[in-house]
């Protein structure tokens, strides 16, 4: 199975992606994750202003088959949450790297983190 792995972002071992945007970082789940989960029916996201340390669970994605915690790739404060995806969770399946984005975080320590995976490293992991 060929999974999408866009080259313009970082990844985590737990299949989140992080995309740098004008000082903050946008976070979502990767194609592999949405495929594993199947039809997503609920997306539980934190409120703007909540803070998390790197690796903390910041939300839950629930599909018919499974419930999955999602983890922040870097620590920081939530500065935006994607309301549309809460109302239309299927966007995460249909467009996981675009309209399926989940939150934006202002990273406390910046986004240069050795634990983040490059697209190449992530591709190797999911093969």
């Amino acid at each position, binding site marked *: 199975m060929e999974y999408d792995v866009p080259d313009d972002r970082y990844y985590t071992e737990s299949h989140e992606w992080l995309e740098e945007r004008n000082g903050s970082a946008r976070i979502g789940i990767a194609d592999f994750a949405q495929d594993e989960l199947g*039809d997503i029916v609920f997306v539980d996201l934190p409120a703007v202003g909540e803070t998390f340390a790197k690796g903390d669970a910041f939300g839950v994605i629930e599909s018919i088959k499974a419930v999955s915690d999602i983890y922040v790739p870097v620590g920081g404060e939530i500065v935006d949450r994607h309301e549309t995806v809460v109302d239309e969770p299927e966007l995460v*399946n249909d467009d996981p790297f675009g309209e399926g984005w989940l939150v934006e975080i202002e990273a406390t320590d910046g986004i240069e983190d050795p634990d983040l995976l490059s697209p190449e490293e992530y591709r190797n992991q999911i093969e």
Partner: protein
Amino acid sequence: MSLQKPPLYQEHAAADADFTDFGGWEMPVSFESITSEHRAVRESAGIFDVSHMGEVSVSGPDATELMNRLTTNAVESLGPDDAQYACILREDGSILDDTVVYRYPDEEGYLFVPNAGNDAEMASRWSEFARRWDLDASARNLTDERGMIAVQGPDAVERVAEGADHPVEDLSRFSAARTTIDDVPCLVARTGYTGEDGFEIIFPSEGAETVWRAFDDVQPCGLGARDTLRLEAGLLLSGQDFHPEEEPRTPYEAGLGFVVDLSKDRFVGRAELEAQKEAGADEQLVGIRVEGSGIARHGYPILVDGTEVGHVTSGTMSPTFDVPIALGYVDAEYAGDETDLQIDIRGRTVEATVVNHRFLETLGNNT
């Protein structure tokens, strides 16, 4: 013990299905997506490989008596080609398995279909009791020699009629007929597990690919959609909504009183059921509509005003109604329609309501 592969395993692998272990069988969960497969069945037609189900044939002069004593429904009322849904009980009245019993159209004897993984136990149960009661009847476990598929949906009858070499479109619900599909001998029954019209088709395993491919323009559906469809129809899942060890339930607790014929002379479990019918069951199966967000899953506690009164046995997001639905057992006093409940969804309390568990009718009327 390794998983059994159904005769159609290669077909499913070639179609890139996602697989799971179900009842000791490696079965497809989905081919496309649970939701799209579910919709295909509700709107046109879907085809399921259900070869993991068991097939046990029962023959001999005392076959009717043996079937009658080991199942809850009125076997002697079956004419040739009739089928009926029934429970198989233990002495204490709890359900071992549910099954559909077919009386063969053209020969003496019966076929019944135990759930996946239960065939050996049921076949030997039948043989053991025939011996114990000195009945002239024998049971043969045909599961490894048979395949089974289901074609379900508003267009299913038409599609199967096109594929079958004898007329089947006039078969009434719970009737069966023998025919061939591309020269493979089949038993075709107007039964199903989805709440839609359609057929279940049983054939020798060597014919599996031929029969499956006769319907290659019908959307293949996996066990994921099978579960969302049967839940919407309010149908129970053996091993989950009742289980001899983990969830022992009588037919009265499980809402299956309609397949119990207490006027029968004798059947295993009868005495316990008579007593429970008299006294009333302490706990009852209910249908649940979740009012908040989250799926109520197997094992989740059911509360009323903070007190635990039951638990969920099955739940999903209903693709047709876009609302989470569930089945569960609650103390009888909370089993009335419109009772307000709360479900503990992983530490969060979510509001829910008791509704009649035939969700297709109950929720359909509210839209």
